């Protein structure tokens, strides 16, 4: 495990300027995706609106069978 950690540590430490710039882009991208988009714009509809799987399945059955009576 230590060797594996050192592999990453040395790799990042000795990275070129271009490499560091690339990693900066990656971190910004992941931040936008997980801490902006996911948190504020992409709530899980069923998890947010219902508490149990029973409520979720009832809602889906309702949606599938009621929409076009």
């Amino acid at each position, binding site marked *: 495990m230590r060797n594996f950690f050192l592999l990453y540590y040395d790799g990042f430490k000795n990275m070129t300027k271009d490499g560091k710039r*690339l990693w900066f*882009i990656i971190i910004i991208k*992941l931040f936008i995706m997980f801490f902006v988009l*996911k948190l504020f714009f992409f709530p*899980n*509809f069923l998890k947010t609106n219902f508490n149990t799987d029973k409520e979720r399945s009832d809602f*889906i*059955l309702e949606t599938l*069978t009621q929409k076009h009576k």
Partner: protein
Amino acid sequence: MEHIDVSLVDWSRAQFALTAIYHWFFVPLTLGLSFLIAIFETMYVRSGDEEWLKITKFWMRLFGVNFAIGVATGIILEFEFGTNWSNYSWLVGDIFGAPLAIEGILAFFLESTFIAVMFFGWNKVSKNFHLTSSWLVAIGSNLSALWILVANGWMQNPVGMHFNPDTARNEMLSFWAVLFNPMAVHKFLHTVTSSYVVASLFVIGVSAWYLLKKREISVAKKSILVAATFGLASALFTGLTGDSSAKTIAKSQPMKLAAIEGLYNGTHGAGLVVVGMVNPSKEIDNNENPYLFQIPIPNMLSIMAKGKPDAFVPGISDLIYGNNSEGIIGVESRIVNGKIAVSALRDYKTAKKENNPEKQQESLQLFNKYKSDLGYGFLENAKEAIPPIALVFYSFRVMVGLGFYFIALFALILYLLYKNKIENKKWLLHLMLWSIPLGYLSSQLGWLVAEVGRQPWTIQDVLTTNFSTSQISSGMVQTTFFMFFALFTLLLIAEIRILVKQIKKGPEGGSNV
């Protein structure tokens, strides 16, 4: 239908298409270039020639840029499933859980572990261990694709499951049936080998640019030799898997095949339209000619679809209205059955709530009798089952045409390399360079045929697109559509700029990213 917000469905589809298209700009190069790098490194380890090492490190640098910018762009599709497509997500949850979990644990772990050795391990691990790591990165990337394509294959041909009316979910009966679903197998082979073609064209195009600039001649020629050989083998295999896909589609998605061909009236000994134009005025219930012009190969569609020159290939009319003599039940009849299934499901739910076991049993029996047509109960009109003909018809022809062009290009390149004349053929070098975007175009069109061609279904014969969405505002989806558009465009511009910069630096100009 008045309860369905068409604008929400359209915006949700547009957003999913946008993110999938952008995601697919990154994936094919990762899938193919990883194998090419492993081959380059194998050449180095076997020959000891330092130039192969230089070649390996150079392409690894470009692979690193593409991998880094593209990584996790696919996760956005999963965000969309949960927010925009909750009905769909609920219905498929049990089926997708296993393949996606394996993808996350096994393939991604393999890929991300050994990619560190690949980039940071030079001079720290043995040559053979480094080479093994490069191969494992390639295998890991492709295994990731396998599980995603297994999930997609299931949507096109849902097997190994049953619908549980108590939970409203499709539950997996056989993991192996899902994994070895013929649609998934063909889809995986067709998708990864076509991605190898995209990556080969990328290597060839960049190398051609060096030859045009009279730089890195030896590196470029060696790269072209490996990429053209790999590309030719992959393009030929892609053609073979395309042929086997046609047989699977003919069996489980006959409407998609009819749409691809613009075939309205089924026939024995059906011909394959090689070049043609569909008639925009043609509708299923008018007598217009389906084509403005066409050049067909007689009997070829029957051979492709059923393996026999005189086999019957159903057209759109046969599939909509049915064809008794060929034993085809039409969509019109299946809608009637589907409505009975939906109604029985509703009665089952009500009886359960009212604690009426007799009624519950009766409704369940009726539901089980008609459940194979459940999805058709969500259609209001049989014509809704017809996908957009012109879009899939032209996309398919451009994709296949480009496939043949790539085979010819790879073969010509190999011939001229053998004759040692390639760097003198400037027109060919330009063609090689400008073939890079054609590879991406062909790959994207393949997805377009697969996904637009299966409309109106998100899960074939089980769930329609209209019934797959969440009950959210379309304004919210529009907002995130434009946010994604901006984010992905920026990422794509960043990738192209960094790649161009690295290419201009050349094999000598940089170390690992």
